[in-house]
């Protein structure tokens, strides 16, 4: 078996005396949707922050099998470099550039490539041909994602003026414009209505099928998670308590216990479990 795209072993994150993440192993692969679930405060977002370079993990190995650069240890890179290696995230509380238009948001995402083409701005300042071509290509790529996520009507609007559901789509489009290997989505369905959530599920499956990238997903909406995930990891109190296919997770004793506290005679449907977990509080913000 070949090495998975991302292989996390023994990830531990300590904040002073608090152990937020304790020796978690997980993996995510290209062409697969991997979900990370768990009650609020379980450490999911902390794991994400370690993966995407926002925290330096206390210990552990985050190994990325990069197709051209070989094996890369993400935890050794400076934070912003992680995205340049193809691990790109979205945020639980959306982080767009609110006073820039949707198109500009997507162009900022192509910064790294464009910066090289503009030769630190010099070629761009002089308006050289190579730069103009690069810029046109960048706009075309942005246009592709704008059309793909049905954002054509708002492409020239300031992102901050858009509705919540549309902003979520813009954030995904922006992440896709960086040409990622692994797309990490932190609760992409939070705040969406059921119809929008269903559309999101289709979109993610479409991206997986069409571009063959890996998707790592934190999500509380169990219907979505169970519907689209290939593999699920469950964490509680910073420890991984289970992993497997949606069917395995659905019936896993420890998972049910984690979500409901006490094992129950009757097995509650996972959607109810998620609701209970939601009510428990909003502990794990970025």
């Amino acid at each position: 078996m070949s090495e998975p795209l991302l292989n996390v072993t023994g990830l531990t994150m300590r904040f002073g005396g608090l152990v937020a993440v304790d020796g978690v192993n997980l993996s995510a692969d290209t062409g697969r949707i991997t979900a990370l679930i768990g009650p609020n405060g379980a450490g999911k977002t902390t794991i994400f922050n370690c993966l995407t370079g926002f925290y330096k993990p206390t210990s552990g190995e985050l190994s990325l099998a990069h197709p051209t650069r070989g094996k890369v240890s993400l935890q050794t890179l400076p934070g912003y470099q992680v995205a340049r290696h193809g691990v790109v995230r979205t945020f639980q509380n959306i982080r767009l550039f609110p006073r820039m238009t949707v198109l500009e948001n997507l162009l900022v995402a192509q910064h790294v490539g464009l910066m090289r083409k503009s030769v630190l701005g010099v070629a761009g300042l002089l308006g050289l041909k190579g730069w103009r071509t690069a810029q046109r290509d960048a706009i075309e790529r942005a246009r592709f994602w704008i059309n793909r996520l049905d954002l054509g009507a708002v492409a020239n609007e300031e992102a901050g003026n858009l509705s919540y559901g549309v902003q979520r789509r813009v954030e995904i489009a922006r992440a896709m414009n960086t040409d990622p290997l692994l797309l990490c989505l932190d609760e992409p369905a939070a705040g969406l209505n059921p119809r929008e959530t269903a559309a999101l599920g289709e979109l993610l499956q479409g991206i997986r099928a069409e571009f063959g990238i890996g998707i790592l997903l934190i999500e509380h909406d169990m219907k979505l998670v169970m519907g689209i995930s290939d593999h699920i990891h469950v964490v509680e109190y910073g420890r991984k308590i289970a992993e497997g296919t949606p069917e395995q997770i659905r019936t896993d004793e420890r998972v049910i216990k984690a979500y409901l506290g006490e094992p129950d005679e009757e097995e509650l449907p996972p959607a109810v479990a998620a609701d209970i977990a939601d009510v428990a509080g909003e502990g794990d913000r970025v």
Partner: protein
Amino acid sequence: MATPIETKLKDSAAAAGLALVLSIPFIGLHTISTDQGLVVESRWSWVAWAVGLVFIGRLLLGFARDALAARAASRPKKQAKPVAAGEPTLAARLTRAFMAVALLFAVTLPFMPYSDRYIIDLGTTVLIYILLALGLNVTVGLAGLLDLGFVAFYAIGAYSFALLSKFFGLDFWVCLPLSGLIAALFGALLSLPILRLRGDYLAIVTLGFGEITRIVILNWQSLTGGPNGVSGIPRPGLFGLSFDRRPPEGMGSFHELTGIDFSGEHRLMFLYLIVLALVCLVAWVINRLRALPVGRAWEALREDEIACRSLGINPTASKVSAYAIGGMMGGFAGCFFAARQGFVSPESFGFIESALILAIVVLGGMGSQVGVVIAALFIVMLPELGREFADYRMIVFGLAMITIMVWRPGGLLSTRVPTVKLDQKGA
């Protein structure tokens, strides 16, 4: 929405109370010098007048507001017309027309029959401030990094030219790019210690940088001449032609070569045109940078630094480049300032200058270049126009500033012009 009369009365009473507190020291007490020395006299009737006026004025303001609101409510709401993408909006077209007229006016100004020494000189001052504000606009307006010590770059640019010409005999045209580069270098240096700071802390450190620069210049007597400054800075020439009546050794002179009668005004006109060209160049470069990855990264940094990092943008590089480019523009302005004055001293580079430049940027609407131009005109011209008010002109100035900030809290031009638009072909 109409407020009940009691609310209005209470509000007016509060305003009157405030007026009472303020007017006792300012109006109520009055010093007169008599034979016996300085005597304090009270003018309580004046205080009563002031308080009464404020009370009535505030009350009338309340009614006027209600009347305006009622009129606005009765008028049918205008539907915003959908604007076809790719077509400039009316505001954008008006702005462009304004800029064209302003540029034409600026270029022809020195050749107009009504232009005298005073007008050209004032125009030059306005343009220097526009240049400074355009530079600060990069750091504050685009990259969102507060800088209360921008005057440091102005000073560094001015002293670079002054000292390079004093010790190495370099002329203006060589020193102009050098001053810019030196100021940019200091900008990059300044940006390093403040990478992790934001908000109040950033403000304090940049303020400190401005003061340190001034104090170093003031005390490094052997290099900068301390409080005496540096004098005898050469005037810029035009391709080796001097604008002096008797050109220095080895230089031709403008009036001899062209056969135009000598006039001291030619030099002023020439200086004016140099700074105008500089402003145009700098405005063009910054406008261009905005639509380049460098400039977009600045704006993205202003909007959300964390999101920037998540997209692979190096925030350090963005900050360093924003301070360096902004500083460079300040350096150009400083170099020109030294050439115009022929003399530099630390006095010209106090904190008040930083505050003034920042006021121009904020008043113009952060990030807007046209706004900066209008605001610079306003801030430099207003105290000049107000000279008749003598002692009260700074009060008038402050009042005007407050009025504008109440009327347009985001600055004169607070709408942001997108750097690129998507046309809807095939969408």
